[in-house]
């Protein structure tokens, strides 16, 4: 053997080269290290904001039935369980519901899980008790529904879980299936790799993976399907680095929150916390064995084993996991047997999005915009408490869906290209809280949000503002003032002549002011508007909260040439409903930081912008719309004793069908039409009202109980003529007027009993 002498120079060069390599490798390692550590921190701290509905408050006297509560609890993911085995369970009887609430941290502090017995009687909550306490509860608040989250553009969504809240069985099961030596290895498991390689060799294809939890975590951080040697090497190096930096529990917790477990449209479902909500609609600690076995099963391939799309495949894999747990004595044989027999238990139909009420969440997003930077919303785990009332939202969506189906059957123009659409908003009368918002008939589809973005002419919904402008001049107008419903031509500044028409193309002659509004007569309204002047009407619109200040004072505004979105109409009508107090509509009540510190609170903000007296008169007239006017059809759904007020709106050629109205506690606005602006084929009464009226019944809207303002008195009128009456009239009605400006024209019967009436009474 000849030893060749290596020249010293070469040797030095070799050492230098090796050193250089080592330096380059070290730099590379440092870069990798930085990368993996920032991702690790991100996995622990980057959290989309969570959006909650307003919590259900139960109290004696609340109009509520056991079935209502059952539905609400099911939406919340509570499980029916006679023995009430833990938080999130309930049992239901004929007149009583027992439940164990979930612990939850509200704006005003944490609330522990508690057991309640709620007794019902006569369609209302009778009393609420906590076992072991003698006193009854005055008020109980349930944990609010998680309706969605605001996740970043890349679409990663998660609900953070803490290791100590994860069921121990889930962890031991996960480790047993995915990484049996997790506690002992340093990031890679050489034995597992060889075992997998051997299995794969035998099978002739890849049947087993030897990746540890740590490696899988790294892989999830840099999710890509690329399979190269370089990537594999990076993965191994990063796994080793992670293990060097962090302890096992930190790695495990990060894994539980990072692992990819499903896809929901463009939203990627990461971590067991969100997966639990996504597949089972309840928090992770409430999952039972067969449920978390499915989640463990999904780790191997969330789309291949997608339980909503490939139920049998998913069940086979779940049962495999269950059997592995049984073999390892992680579950008892009888538990195993029961679990194997259970269905998957996944909620929702295939392909249903888990983010609820996308139209409402869209509104929340817009309200937050400009107040919080995008990164704070998508990354800091804010908790956003909204005004959404799930019952109201469900009622709105259901009524829109079912009524549109009926309307489609009633009238479907043959040449209609766009389908019939609808949008709606429900708010409180006081405090301006948006309780429900629907952007279209497909409520689960986060598309064009008509409630916010579809601005359409409001038609006769504008009339109340014309009449209010008139009633604000009590020396000139009261509810009984006689208007002329006769054709009118209005010359425009452009030289054209505007010729409005009545819906029935008839002139109705002299008519009391309130009835002209109740019957929505156009001639009378235009004449009244001309008399008070467009600028006065424009001012009233502005005071009611017209978006962006007073609308331009065109005459056509009297008949609603103004374009507004349903949400904007709700703003205007909520000012009417609260008797002239303008309150900006809000979708958010509170924003909390991740740890629970309060950040922002959106307070009730009231401002008197319209005078109470004239508004009292106007609302009385709007009640007549519902009682005897164009919205009399309401009586088919809401008993006449429940006093509601509102207005129909119809635009040219029946393109838009509107209804806006309110009771004592709810305002609702509905629009029906087509996206291509072709005729919908319905009036306000035959279209939108058919959603509004049953919706108000579903909402159990309370009837108006107006209180007389200091400057208002009432007198009797003859309902036939709308003129002032005295005890001589057979039937009289109390009509409000501003003190000092009573109705002056007397009805004929005011001077004695009318002979005609007397005759009518005789026969």
């Amino acid at each position, binding site marked *: 053997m000849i030893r060749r002498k290596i020249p010293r120079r070469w040797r030095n060069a070799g050492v230098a080269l090796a050193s250089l390599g080592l330096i380059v490798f070290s730099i590379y390692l440092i870069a990798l290290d930085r990368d993996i550590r920032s991702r690790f921190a991100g996995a622990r701290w980057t959290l989309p904001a969570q959006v909650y509905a307003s919590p259900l408050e139960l109290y004696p006297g609340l109009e509520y039935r056991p079935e209502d509560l059952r539905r609400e609890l099911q939406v919340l993911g509570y499980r029916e369980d006679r023995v009430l085995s833990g938080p999130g369970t309930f049992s239901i009887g004929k007149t009583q519901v027992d439940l164990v609430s979930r612990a939850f941290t509200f704006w005003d502090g944490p609330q522990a899980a508690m057991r309640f017995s709620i007794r019902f009687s006569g369609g209302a909550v009778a009393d609420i008790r906590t076992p072991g306490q003698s006193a009854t509860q005055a008020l109980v608040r349930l944990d609010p529904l998680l309706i969605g989250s605001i996740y970043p553009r890349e679409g990663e969504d998660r609900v953070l879980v803490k290791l100590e809240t994860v069921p121990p069985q889930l962890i031991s099961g996960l480790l047993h299936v995915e990484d049996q030596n997790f506690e002992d290895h340093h990031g890679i498991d050489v034995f597992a790799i060889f075992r997998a390689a051997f299995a794969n060799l035998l099978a002739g294809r890849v049947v087993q993976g030897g990746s540890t939890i740590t490696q899988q975590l790294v892989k999830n951080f840099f999710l890509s399907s690329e399979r190269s040697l370089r990537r594999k090497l990076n993965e191994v190096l990063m796994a080793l680095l992670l293990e060097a930096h962090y302890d096992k529990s930190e790695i495990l917790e990060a894994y539980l929150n990072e692992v990819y477990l499903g896809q929901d449209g463009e939203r990627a479902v990461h971590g067991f916390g969100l997966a639990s909500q996504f597949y089972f609609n309840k928090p992770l600690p409430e999952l039972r064995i067969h449920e978390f076995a499915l989640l463990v099963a999904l780790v191997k391939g969330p789309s291949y084993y997608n339980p909503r799309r490939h139920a049998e495949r998913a069940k086979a894999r779940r049962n495999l996991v269950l059997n592995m747990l049984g073999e390892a004595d992680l579950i008892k044989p009888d538990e195993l047997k029961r679990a194997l027999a259970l269905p998957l238990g996944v909620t929702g139909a295939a392909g249903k999005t888990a983010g609820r009420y996308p139209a409402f969440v869209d509104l929340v997003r817009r309200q937050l915009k400009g107040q919080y930077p995008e990164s704070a919303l998508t990354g800091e785990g804010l908790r956003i408490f909204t005004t959404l009332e799930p019952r109201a939202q469900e009622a709105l969506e259901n009524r829109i869906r079912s009524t549109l189906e009926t309307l489609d059957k009633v009238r479907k123009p043959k040449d209609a290209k766009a389908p019939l659409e609808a949008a709606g908003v429900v708010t409180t009368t006081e405090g301006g809280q948006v309780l429900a918002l629907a952007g279209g008939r497909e409520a689960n589809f986060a598309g064009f949000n008509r409630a916010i973005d579809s601005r359409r002419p409001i038609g006769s919904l504008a009339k109340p503002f014309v009449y209010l402008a008139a009633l604000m001049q009590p020396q000139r107008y009261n509810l009984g003032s006689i208007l002329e419903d006769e054709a009118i031509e209005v010359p425009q500044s452009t030289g054209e002549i505007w010729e409005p028409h009545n819906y029935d193309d008839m002139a109705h002659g002299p008519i009391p002011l309130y009835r002209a509004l109740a019957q929505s007569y156009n001639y009378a309204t235009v004449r009244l508007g001309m008399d008070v002047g467009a600028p006065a009407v424009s001012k009233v619109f502005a005071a009611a909260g017209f978006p962006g200040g007073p609308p331009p004072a065109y005459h056509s505004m009297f008949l609603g040439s103004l374009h507004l979105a349903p949400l904007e109409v709700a703003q205007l009508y909520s000012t009417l409903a609260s008797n002239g107090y303008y309150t900006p509509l809000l979708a958010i009540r509170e924003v909390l930081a991740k740890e629970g510190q309060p950040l922002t609170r959106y307070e009730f903000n009231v401002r008197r912008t319209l005078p109470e007296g004239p508004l009292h008169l106007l609302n009385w007239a709007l009640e007549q719309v519902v*009682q005897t006017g164009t919205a009399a059809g309401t009586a088919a759904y809401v008993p006449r004793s429940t006093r509601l007020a509102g207005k129909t709106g119809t635009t040219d050629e029946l393109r838009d069908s509107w209804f806006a109205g309110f009771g004592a506690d709810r305002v609702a606005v509905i629009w029906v039409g087509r996206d291509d602006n072709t005729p919908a084929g319905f009036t306000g009464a035959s279209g939108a009202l058919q959603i509004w009226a049953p919706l108000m019944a579903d909402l159990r809207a309370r009837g108006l109980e107006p209180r007389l303002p200091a400057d208002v008195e009432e007198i009797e009128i003859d309902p036939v003529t709308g003129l002032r009456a005295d005890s001589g009239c057979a039937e009289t009605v*109390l009509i409000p007027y501003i003190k000092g400006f009573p109705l002056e024209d007397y009805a004929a019967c005011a001077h004695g009993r009318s002979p005609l009436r007397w005759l009518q009474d005789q026969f």
Partner: protein
Amino acid sequence: MPHIFALLWILLLTACAAPKQIMDPQLEPVAPVMPLPSETFEGKPQPRPASLPSYRGQAETRARTAESYSGPAVLSLLKQSRTALSKGRNDQASAALERALRIEPKNPFVWQALASVHLDGKRAEQAEATAEKAISLSQNNPHVAAGSWALIAQARTMLGDVAGAEAAQQKADELKDAQ
């Protein structure tokens, strides 16, 4: 015999009837005034009662205190609000009252309590508007109105409106005397 009287009575009435007739053809027809749109497909219109709703018999608000007016849920929230305020938690005090208003939106006592929480939080404009709201809803119940006018007086003082404050205080005093 009674028939003859009846006939006479008719004749008499007819003779005395005012020249302006109720059956003026220009006016709307009697009773069921209900041009329901023809395409209403659901809920067949029922015959309407001839009378419009009466405003008689509306509940009078003469309760002296929140206790005699409010339900137990609202009372517990009023209490919660007072406790929060005594601990200096103004935000939680108003949050509790807003919860109460979701349950009883027209309860003037709650609006008045909210006005005083606003005042405590130095939100004078909101305090004034909210107290005004309480008065609107109180239907001139002197027990609510007196307290609310006193709050308005304080709010106006805070806003530097001396004359307005005096006027409000005067109203509060008058109402107190009237009780």
